């Protein structure tokens, strides 16, 4: 699915949070959204997911205005995983993943055999099959994050928007998750903190600063020392690690 933002503005009364963003994500592409805390990554992601109505401009999915679609139509096209979505509820892992089938079901019926197959497959893909019956409260942060991703996969959409999905994961699960995200045929927009990870797994990076899009393109075009100094206020050195992946080294912050 092609996702585009046209002169997108969003904010709360008295404060603009996303300013005049022009962005096109091509079908099947994996785009990494980077930027410091408060740069508007989460807000832009929510706008792209159709969860916020733009103050000005528009978000289009395959040309259609996302705001004009009903919630159910949106959920059939695009899945979204929040940075942290917690609950007091005693839902079990499989039940959370089954939530992803909500838009596929009629109000009148419960999950059917097909829904169960899709859920089982999603659990498998995230290595959660053994935890299927485990209550939410007994899950670690990483297991919760993987459960949410499995739920998003069970939604069977053509686009997937993720807000810092690797946050709570250990290294192995970070790699597996990013492997999965970059390997999926779905269109993916993923907000990330780890610049090297973003560079390694994303087809393209988008750099946000104070709500505005300041650079986009391949990792080597976006992750440059001057840009990182301007946006992140760090002195960075861009190089390669022993495996040939792009690596970012940081000097002590200047006083």
């Amino acid at each position: 699915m092609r996702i585009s933002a046209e002169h997108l503005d969003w904010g709360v009364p008295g404060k603009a949070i996303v300013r005049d963003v022009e962005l096109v994500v091509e079908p099947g592409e994996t785009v990494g959204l980077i930027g410091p805390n408060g740069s508007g990554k989460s807000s832009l992601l929510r706008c792209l997911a159709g969860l916020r109505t733009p103050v000005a401009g528009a978000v289009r999915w395959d040309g259609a205005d996302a705001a004009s679609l009903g919630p159910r139509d949106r959920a059939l096209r695009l899945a979204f995983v929040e940075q942290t979505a917690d609950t007091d509820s005693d839902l079990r892992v499989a039940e959370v993943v089954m939530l992803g089938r909500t838009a596929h079901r009629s109000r009148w019926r419960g999950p059917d055999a097909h829904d169960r197959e899709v859920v089982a497959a999603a659990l498998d893909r995230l290595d959660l099959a053994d935890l299927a019956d485990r209550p939410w409260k007994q899950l670690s942060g990483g297991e919760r994050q993987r459960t949410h991703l499995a739920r998003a996969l069970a939604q069977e959409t053509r686009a997937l928007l993720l807000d810092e999905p690797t946050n709570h994961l250990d290294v192995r699960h970070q790699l597996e998750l990013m492997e999965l995200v970059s390997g999926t045929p779905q269109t993916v927009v993923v907000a990330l903190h780890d610049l090297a990870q973003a560079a390694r797994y994303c087809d393209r990076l988008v750099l946000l600063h104070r709500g505005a899009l300041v650079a986009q393109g391949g990792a080597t075009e976006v992750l440059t020392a001057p840009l990182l100094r301007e946006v992140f206020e760090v002195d960075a050195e861009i190089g390669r690690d022993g495996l040939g992946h792009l690596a970012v080294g940081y000097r002590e912050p200047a006083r």
Partner: protein
Amino acid sequence: MADTAVLAEPPAPPEPVRRTLTTVLCLAFLVLSLVLAVRIGAGTGWAEIGRAVGGRLGVPVVPLSRLQDSLIWDLRVPRVLLAALVGAALAVCGAALQSVTRNSLADPYLLGVSSGASTGAVVVVVLGFGGSRLGVTGGALIGALVAFSVLMLLLRRTGLDSVRVVLTGVVVGQLFAALTSLILLSSGDADSIRAVTHWLLGSLASARWSSVAVCAVVLALGLLVVWLCSAALDGFAFGTDTAASLGVDVRTTRIVLLVTTSVLTAVAVAAVGAVGFVGLIVPHGVRFLVGPLHRRLLPLSAVVGAVFLVWTDAVTRVVFAPLEVPVGVFTALLGVPLFLLVLRRRGEL
């Protein structure tokens, strides 16, 4: 019977036999409770019940005296049915509101509906239509709906997010509680105070067929509407954005659920007063049994709520007989230990 029809309202899902069996067992348990509860109380043996009910079903039986017959058919049977309907309504409202507000302490009275009902009842009593009970019931219903309208008016430009709904509801409840106190202080006679006490604790003594009919219709519709929102209620577990991304029309669903639960609560409170605790504990207990998915939670809460109130009311009829103790007193007395037990079993206490 009207009640089983009501509780069987959500169409049974074409799912494994086990689930069908559970449904059948639950309904059997409910019907058994209803039948046993009709027996409990002064002046009714199985023979009398058989003669009263059998006569109406066309069975050739020796009719009872007119008063004994009316004791069973005009008082006891509607009372037991009303207990079941109100118990079911409160439990379902509690379950739904706990999900909508993401607050495990939510109960049907959280949004100030019962405070509005008290105010309405007191206004009617003070203005002097108190002679007929229909007047008080009507006043309570109007008061409850006015309180809810004020709530929705205050929330009209918001996204109905949980915290705001709860806070506004509490504020509206306080407002109407203050109004009730004000009216009582300025008119302050024993009759209006008695009316408020009645609304605060709830009593099934005034159950009649007319209120059973109204509650049955409202509960059937309300339960169906809430049940059809099951998936949305599940989706609310992780908050607004996740719910919306799952395809839930969050705002519309919240409005539908707030309106439905408030109307259900208003009708229940108008019929029997604000019976406490059922709406809070029954959903928690049922979640403990079948988990938090609302497709199962809601119908089972309805059944358990119905059975709980039917039995609690039966207890109130006999424990201090012939004194009439408000059933609300006993729902708390029986409910608190049960609630603590559930919390302990869940390891939360």
